[in-house]
């Protein structure tokens, strides 16, 4: 009996270890530079600086956005990821309006209309746009479009949902 229990325990431990390995691997498979390659980080940083300059919006980091949400600040949060991805989990209170990952120039009329519909009438409202991670361009397209439409208080959270998850903040599903 004791041997049987030992055998069972060994099998369960092996399964748990395998499950643990796969989830920690999963955590590191998506992001700006999953292998830690500095060249990719540099490229993403350059792209971000140029996009902010061109787009005319401001940046907010995950930690600060979390504080805004916790304090119950009135704001509009827009997730620009594809609907399938949004459905798997998003920043609390975020609405979904997909934007292209390339640039605003590639947005379809439907995408622009759906995004605009989430913004509301108050041009001075606090608006936060995010997407997947820093190297992703969807949130730039969204934030730049909001600025183009005349909204004055537009922020982009560059780290996106991956930074939010890596910070282990709560998600809405």
């Amino acid at each position: 009996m004791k041997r049987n229990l030992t055998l069972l325990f060994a099998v369960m431990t092996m399964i748990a270890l395998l499950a643990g390995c796969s989830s920690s691997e999963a955590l590191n498979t998506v992001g700006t530079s999953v292998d830690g390659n500095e060249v990719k980080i540099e490229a993403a940083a350059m792209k971000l600086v140029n996009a902010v300059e061109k787009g005319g919006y401001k940046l907010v980091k995950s930690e600060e956005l979390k504080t805004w949400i916790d304090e119950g600040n009135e704001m509009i949060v827009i997730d620009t990821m594809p609907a399938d991805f949004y459905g798997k989990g998003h920043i609390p209170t975020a609405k979904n309006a997909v934007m292209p990952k390339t640039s605003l120039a590639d947005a379809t009329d439907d995408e622009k209309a759906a995004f605009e519909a989430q913004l509301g009438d108050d041009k001075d409202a606090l608006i936060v746009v995010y997407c997947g991670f820093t190297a992703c361009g969807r949130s730039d397209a969204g934030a730049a479009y909001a600025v183009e439409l005349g909204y004055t208080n537009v922020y982009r959270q560059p780290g996106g949902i991956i930074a939010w998850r890596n910070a282990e903040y709560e998600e809405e599903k």
Partner: protein
Amino acid sequence: MKKRISIVLGISTVILLLAVFFMQNNNDQSQSLSIHNQHIQVASIKLGMSEQEVFEQLKVKPEEEMCVYGYEFNFKDEGLNLGFRVDTNTIRRITVINNTDTLYGIKNGMTLDEAKQVLLDAGFMSDETVKNRYKIDDVYFTVVSKKGTHVDQLIIEIIDDKILEYAQ
């Protein structure tokens, strides 16, 4: 002793059944891919192709970017973007931006109605959740239209929930 043998046999059976289940799933997906690939006329690029095979076929250095489903190669001059699975390094998505390559006989520049008819005739069903997206088996076909009249981009991609889980 008898109990021990039963436990070992039980565990072995479960492992064997799981292995058969996964092999069956992989076979089904390979068959489905091979059918769809017959309708992909994009240089010699096919779904499920490895990175190495892509380099051999296109002989051009692409821009590499990360995406939430893995990573992608952008062949700007060719008007082609290929999405790869991060776990197998094989193509999971083909995006056609040029006006020459075809997917299921559909070419950029055709009207949305023409494209829709081709896809419905091929057995695709409209996906209610995303506009201009169609589904068959484990494949999505998206027709992107900037102005809502003509096709500007074609996207064919393998549906695999496991890919979404990588970002969880």
